[in-house]
């Protein structure tokens, strides 16, 4: 498939998901957009791996794995770590009720949501918006409040 000329915009995107066909799909869509993709399944040392590779964006599923909470746990740990708190995150979820309940927290932490099922444009738009949010995240009142509440400035 022909690719857009994105040499100036290509980013490193980390996709965390336990479903192989979802990982393959995200890789296709994101590489079509010119981004470099790292894809992996959940593991207990996810946070240290995210810290190590410092992706420009993380896309993760919120309901999966044996406890069905690994994505949520990773997201919270990322936002509590100074090394990862400003990395844009997109959560991909089928749990509309859960998303509704967490709407405030997700917005305050600049987390974009793509509800399943979705179409290509939904993901492309969320990725574009997530990258556009990077500067806002580091200077917004919510970001400053997060840093303040973590004891950092």
């Amino acid at each position, binding site marked *: 498939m*022909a690719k857009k000329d994105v040499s100036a915009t290509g980013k490193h995107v980390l996709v965390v998901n336990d479903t192989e066909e*979802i990982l393959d799909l995200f890789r296709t869509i994101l590489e079509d957009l010119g981004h470099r993709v790292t894809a992996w399944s959940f593991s207990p040392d996810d946070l240290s791996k995210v810290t190590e590779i410092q992706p420009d964006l993380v896309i993760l599923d919120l309901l999966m794995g044996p406890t069905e909470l690994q994505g949520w746990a990773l997201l919270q740990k990322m936002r509590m770590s100074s090394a990862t708190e400003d990395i844009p995150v997109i959560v991909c979820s089928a749990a509309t009720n859960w998303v509704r309940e967490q709407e405030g927290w997700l917005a305050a932490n600049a987390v974009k949501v793509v509800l399943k*099922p*979705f179409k290509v444009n939904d993901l492309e738009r969320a990725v574009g918006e997530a990258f556009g949010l990077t500067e806002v995240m580091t200077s917004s009142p919510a970001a400053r409040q997060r840093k303040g509440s973590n004891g950092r400035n």
Partner: protein
Amino acid sequence: MLSQETGVSDKQREILELRTIRVSTRAALSAVSSDEEVERVRTMSTELLARLESDVIRDGADPDLIAALEAARRELWE
């Protein structure tokens, strides 16, 4: 026909679109448990497939794609 922005043919784009809807629908159905959520996923997927079908018909109604769309609809109820 080629998209001016990407150079990707409409058919290639529609194939990717169909794959995206099918894969994300399967993932969604395996992740939800309540009747309400299952119904929401089926309704949303049906709408996405209908919109894609309109595009496919507009672009010449490729028989392979039409058949794949039908298969995707059946999958929703399996």
